[in-house]
């Protein structure tokens, strides 16, 4: 459990690590930590994180509110239906080894089950085997047959515009037209959102949105969910518009599952976005049906 290295971090590193696990680091502090011995830092960071977590476990807990529990169950259903394939693809070859380690712990049954699910999905996505590159946990590869036909040229992945067009063609997708506000930055902007509630995927589409300097500000998408308090829209992520872009299509990555898409808005925020928008610069707005 203890760091394997005999090297001990110096005071400066310990101060940064303690701050990281208690309140997080500023960008300047993060840069200062990055230039130190990264292996030693990550070794000790995990130890401090574990100590901080253990301390929080020694404090009393309060019951989960029933309404939140219901939302979590809804979220679990959506996640199980649409998002686990992403995990499976990310799991790559290390999933097998990790899942085997998981199975050692009888006290962590849920994690074992989840890891098995990852493995099962991973296996499913790898079929047919001949079309997928071997991953780290595959140690035996059959030699190719002597008369193997030439492989077709790999297809280019679809562009965001093509994916949006495909989504738009699906009967279950929903489209919301966006209207420009009176904000000066909104002049001449038109756009829409295409959203698939089943897969929780969607795209923003704009014409005329001004390019931004990501060091100065970024655009941020907000999604209003009919099942949630409208004062707290879901963060749809930040995005940039490059110079001379003309028409832009941006994939949507909602931080939380959207039960019922009610409205969307785009604001201008500081780089990296905000948790709660002041709504000083709302650029476009659109409501469902």
């Amino acid at each position: 459990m203890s760091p394997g290295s005999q090297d001990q971090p110096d005071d400066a590193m310990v101060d940064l690590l303690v701050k990281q696990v208690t309140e997080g680091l500023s960008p300047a502090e993060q840069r200062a930590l990055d230039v130190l011995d990264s292996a030693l830092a990550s070794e000790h960071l995990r130890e401090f994180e574990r100590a901080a977590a253990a301390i929080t476990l020694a404090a009393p807990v309060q019951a989960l509110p029933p309404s939140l529990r219901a939302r979590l169950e809804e979220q679990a259903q959506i996640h199980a239906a649409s998002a686990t394939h992403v995990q499976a693809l990310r799991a790559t070859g290390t999933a097998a080894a990790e899942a085997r380690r998981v199975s050692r712990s009888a006290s962590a049954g849920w994690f074992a089950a989840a890891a098995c699910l990852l493995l099962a999905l991973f296996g499913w996505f790898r079929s047919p085997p001949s079309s997928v590159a071997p991953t780290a946990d595959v140690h035996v590869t059959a030699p190719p047959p002597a008369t193997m036909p030439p492989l077709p040229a790999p297809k280019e992945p679809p562009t965001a515009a093509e994916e949006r067009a495909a989504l738009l063609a699906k009967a279950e997708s929903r489209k919301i037209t966006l209207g420009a506000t009176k904000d000066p930055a909104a002049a001449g902007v038109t756009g829409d959102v295409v959203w698939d509630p089943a897969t929780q995927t969607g795209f923003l589409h704009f014409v005329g949105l001004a390019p931004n300097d990501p060091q100065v500000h970024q655009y941020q998408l907000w999604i209003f969910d009919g099942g949630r308090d409208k004062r707290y829209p879901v963060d749809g992520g930040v995005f940039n518009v490059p110079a001379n872009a003309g028409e832009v299509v941006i994939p949507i990555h909602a931080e939380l599952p959207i039960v019922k898409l009610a409205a969307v808005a785009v604001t201008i925020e500081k780089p990296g976005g905000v948790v709660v928008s002041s709504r000083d610069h709302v650029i476009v707005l659109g409501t469902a049906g």
Partner: protein
Amino acid sequence: MRECIDQYGALVWSLARRLSRTPSDAEDATQEIFLDIWRSAGRFDATQGSDKVFVAMIARRRLIDRLRKTTSEPAMAPVEVLESVAWSDPGTASETSPEAAQAARALRELRPEQRQVLELGLLHGLSQSEIAARLGMPLGTVKSFMRRGLIKVREFLNVDAKSVSERV
């Protein structure tokens, strides 16, 4: 996944409630944390600690990220309303996880003001500067208390881990 909510819902919610500015913020944070847990389940390694520590680590990372995004906003709660935490005794904490019991033992060996610094920082989400202002303590002392407290708990955890590995 329901079983996961049963097992860790109260833990995640309690952490989120303490380290979020509003109840609504805590609810959003709880949802984000459960997504993180589901996505990270494959990385759980029982040889590195209990499932509850794994979940608490994921939760704390997410909550600290969220807090840092809102550092320009007013403090999450007036300091007067922060209630002192009744730490579990080691026997009770052992029902939660072995690490909780070891942390409870380590906390007992700390001076009250050291425990208070850990409590304000780890359970109430105050920054070191905020703790210094609240307790009227030099910032260097707060840093030192925080550091020594975490190192003390870390030592207890490592001793426990060593004794476990020796038994195996």
